[in-house]
């Protein structure tokens, strides 16, 4: 039975990504909390439903509040503050997710060449999603 090489002690890519997954999870928690509290401070309790608030917490994008009773989406819900939070969420969430995808693929793909190829594909997908998400946020 051929298996992947045992993880070495010291700073390897695997180890760093393991740490990053935990740290990005905590960062996403903090960003969600900030988004949730800021939304309530901006008046979300009377201006939108729970589903809308959940959607905003998951990702604070102005499009997520356009169908609510928010009096003015611009500037309260779309400004540099929210853009910064969105960029942070995008970076942490996409990297966290793509690393998770890499782990799942490495768990189930048997052939070494296919694993390496899929790892490359995941890297390209990561880059692609970062670019597309950044573009969508900054230009709409």
């Amino acid at each position, binding site marked *: 039975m051929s298996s992947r090489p045992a993880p070495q002690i010291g700073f390897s890519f695997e180890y760093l990504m393991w740490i990053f997954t935990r740290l990005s999870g905590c960062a996403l928690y903090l960003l969600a909390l900030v988004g949730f509290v800021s939304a309530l401070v901006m008046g979300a309790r009377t201006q939108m439903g*729970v*589903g809308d608030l959940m959607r905003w917490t998951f990702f604070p994008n102005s499009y997520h509040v356009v169908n609510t009773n928010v009096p003015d989406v611009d500037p309260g819900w779309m400004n540099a503050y929210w853009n910064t939070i969105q960029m942070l969420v995008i970076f942490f969430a996409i990297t966290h*997710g793509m690393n*998770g995808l890499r782990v*799942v693929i490495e*768990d189930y793909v048997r052939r*070494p060449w296919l694993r390496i190829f899929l790892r490359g594909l995941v890297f390209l997908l990561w880059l692609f999603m970062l670019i597309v998400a950044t*573009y*969508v946020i900054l230009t709409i």
Partner: protein
Amino acid sequence: MALKRNAVFRGLKYRGGGPMLAWLLHRIGGLAILVFVGTHVLSSYFQYQLASELAQSINVIYESVYFQVVLYFFILFHVINGLRIIILDIFPQALEYQREATWLEWLIFIPIYGLTVFIMLQQHFSGG
């Protein structure tokens, strides 16, 4: 890791109980979130930048409350279970209490999920 046996079908015979269910839901939820976020970002791009109707119908699915209830289950579970994993990784001496931690996690998950879904459905059906 190259396995000679089929991981999915043989794995179902493993009686891992609560912790295994948590691992499974965490993994499936993670993949579901990836698929959702990926397709939603792409279809939003196509809908708003290129005015595509196909993209708009995809986003209509995502706006349905029933889809959101199911997706929210996986998201909330992934989030709460993730926190349990992080805590057990920082304090490995608590690993003896893996099973109790899993019970505690469900005890936290069920009220938050139940209450939120109740409010979401109530607001949906009363025209909110």
